[in-house]
């Protein structure tokens, strides 16, 4: 048994956690901003997929990875705007529209990918982002190579967490976001535009989801496949609840999920081969369900989540 553990907790394990956590962190923060403003975005899975495809395509056609990232972010923001158009401007059901956005984005991603790349036996790949060691910091034993010898996007995610907390808790805009998610009428009577604030939050959320998609096809897999997102968007929605709509806690939840995911990957590769690998694949999801069951009891969602705002209603 100890041999198994040795194999699991080897040097690269910590690095793997960080790598797995990065797209989840972006996606979770994106969903969190949207939900804090009172808009559930079930389009996340599709937005991530379409952004992943668009970013990959742009990078592979232009040869510039950063252009790919930009395209992915813009596509994410655009799809966020689409969701906001339905749910905020028109006040339609957030559940129905979110699923609609996911279906639309997924279909569009498959369609455009086939149109551009055709049917190939081996999916085309690109040379993705390479790890950029940070001088000095990367020399720290264990922590150095795991955390400070990573892709630039990983560093961006690490910066994004405190930045999101700062924006949400310390800026007037962040206060407006929290207020429209709690009591839009209060925000409205204080002269804050509920519609504009919600639009902005959902678009920012979409952009972050786009970043998550970009990471998948340009840093983690360096290719686009139809299963590239494989439920990470749905997981992010659960992680937001798990993280109680707080940037720090949500990022922590993403890290925890990544830990279990990295663990199961190692367990698959380890000497526990007599167990079907699907059993290991389930682990992170079982963990999520169990964690949710315990944590969501105390979790209190933003009061105005799912509720469209119409001014004339009294």
């Amino acid at each position, binding site marked *: 048994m100890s041999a198994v553990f040795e194999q699991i907790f080897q040097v690269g394990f910590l690095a793997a956690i960080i790598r797995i956590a990065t797209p989840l962190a972006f996606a979770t923060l994106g969903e969190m901003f949207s939900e804090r403003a009172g808009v559930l975005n079930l389009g996340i899975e599709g937005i991530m997929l379409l952004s992943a495809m668009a970013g990959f395509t742009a990078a592979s056609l232009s040869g510039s990875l950063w252009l790919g990232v930009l395209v992915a972010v813009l596509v994410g923001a655009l799809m966020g705007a689409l969701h906001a158009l339905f749910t905020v401007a028109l006040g339609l059901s957030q559940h129905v529209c979110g699923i609609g956005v996911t279906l639309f984005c997924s279909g569009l991603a498959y369609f455009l990918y086939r149109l551009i790349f055709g049917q190939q036996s081996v999916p085309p790949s690109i040379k993705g982002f390479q790890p950029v060691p940070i001088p000095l910091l990367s020399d720290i034993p264990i922590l150095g190579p795991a955390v400070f010898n990573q892709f630039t996007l990983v560093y961006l995610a690490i910066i994004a967490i405190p930045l999101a907390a700062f924006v949400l808790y310390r*800026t007037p805009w962040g206060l407006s976001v929290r207020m429209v998610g709690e009591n839009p009428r209060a925000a409205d009577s204080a002269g804050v535009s509920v519609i504009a604030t919600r639009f902005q939050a959902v678009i920012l959320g979409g952009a972050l989801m786009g970043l998550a998609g970009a990471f998948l096809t340009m840093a983690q897999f360096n290719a686009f496949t139809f299963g590239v997102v494989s439920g990470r968007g749905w997981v992010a929605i659960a992680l937001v609840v798990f993280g109680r709509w707080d940037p720090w806690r949500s990022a922590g939840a993403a890290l925890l999920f990544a830990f279990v995911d990295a663990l199961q990957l190692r367990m698959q590769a380890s000497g526990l081969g007599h167990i079907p690998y699907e059993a290991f694949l389930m682990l992170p999801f079982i963990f999520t369900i169990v964690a949710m069951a315990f944590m969501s009891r105390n979790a209190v969602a933003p009061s105005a989540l799912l509720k469209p705002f119409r001014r004339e209603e009294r």
Partner: protein
Amino acid sequence: MSAPLIEMRGITKSFGAVKANEAVDLAVAPGEILGLLGENGAGKTTLMNVLFGAYAPDAGEILVGGRPVAIHNSADALAAGIGMVHQHFHLAPRLTVLENLLIGIPGKSGRIDRAGGLARLKEIGRQHGLSLDPDLPVSALSVGEQQRLEIIKALFRGAKLLILDEPTAVLAPSEVDGLFAALRSMAAQGLGIIFISHKLNEVRALTHRCVVLRHGKVAGRVDHPAGTTSAEMAKLMCGHEIVPPAKGESTPGASVLTLDGISTSGHAGTTLREVSLFVRSGEILGIAGVSGNGQRALADVISGMLSPDTGTMTIAGKAVAQFSPRELQALGLGRIPEDRMTTGLVTNLPLADSMVLPRIGTEAFSRKGLLNPAAIRAFAEAQIKAYDIRCPGPMVRAGALSGGNLQKALLARELAFDPKVLIVSQPTRGLDIGAARFIHEKFMVMRGKGCGIIVISEDLEEMLMLSDRIAVMYEGRIAGTLFGADATVARLGLMMTGAEGRS
């Protein structure tokens, strides 16, 4: 009188065919407290919504400091120095006091201006004697404190005119005194205040002048409210005299409802501790107390929605074995819940359905497990006629009715089955004089017929008028019981704060 702070001239606003406001003129001078009186639906709230920018008037103009201004939204109103304290607070419960104040206020170099906000809060505290802990979440504040926060919020934004929409409806008597003191101090410092109410004694006690609206028009102006009798003002409001219902003689019989040592837990809000009380047939027992002292738990236990941990309850001599609304109803209990819209009826269903809901499975309304639509409809139609419930018909969506008509419908639903005990929470909250009068009359009739009635209310005047005995709740206990004849507002007020107990 000095030049008006704000003037509304010839304001007219229609919703479809209904004229909510018609040629209304109104002016407030600095330092003046203006009462705006009227029954529900008289157009008070519409008029104030026009002033606050929520509705655009069809005709008329608004002048601020003598100059006409266009107010299209709340931001415009705030810029014109108009602040409003709504009846339903516009606060986010999970944000802090300071965050609720700073919403919509530009920050300093991209950040929330915390220091500036604290300084301003302190200044308002000093000026008007209104203070609150800035870092407390709003959910931790009492209703009175939340209202104070709303007032501070308006002042924070530099309001010169403060509109308060039925501010005392949610307050305990002691809190009302505090509010009035604060409002007087603000007026003394040159603020204009519009005080909306249908409680005549309050308007007489507080305001310098008042405008009475009826059917959207100005029905009269009273220049010395303190020197005018309530009866005169009520006549202006309703267009006719209002006489309180006669309280006929009634000899209480045997106890119809007895609670013995009831304690609860696991209920949101205050729990009950060893509550014992009884109501006899032909008697009205009032339950007084500051909101949140266990009245809700008491109502829930008596109506079978909450099972007590210890203690027993008997209805008409039969011990209650199982606490469920259906069980208690079978024993002869009728209930009119506090919140008409959520626990009273189903707003999206036809009125007729809501009127038979508690008895949907009984012989009267179903046969062999199938509903009997004809019987349901006939029942609803009969009650609509008997109780003069104003509505297009039994199939109208229940939520479309006004508060007074909803309350009549709920009353009709329970009284039609001659309950032995009736538990009523806040029977006339938000109702106008006419509707309240109707409800009170029905209670008197039921009392005469031998029904035992428990009235839970925060309206002490109502309590004194109706009750044969009054029990005061404090922190989940019965602090004391008074006979109606011995009770006064002052006495009850003391007991409600836990200062005096008596049995």
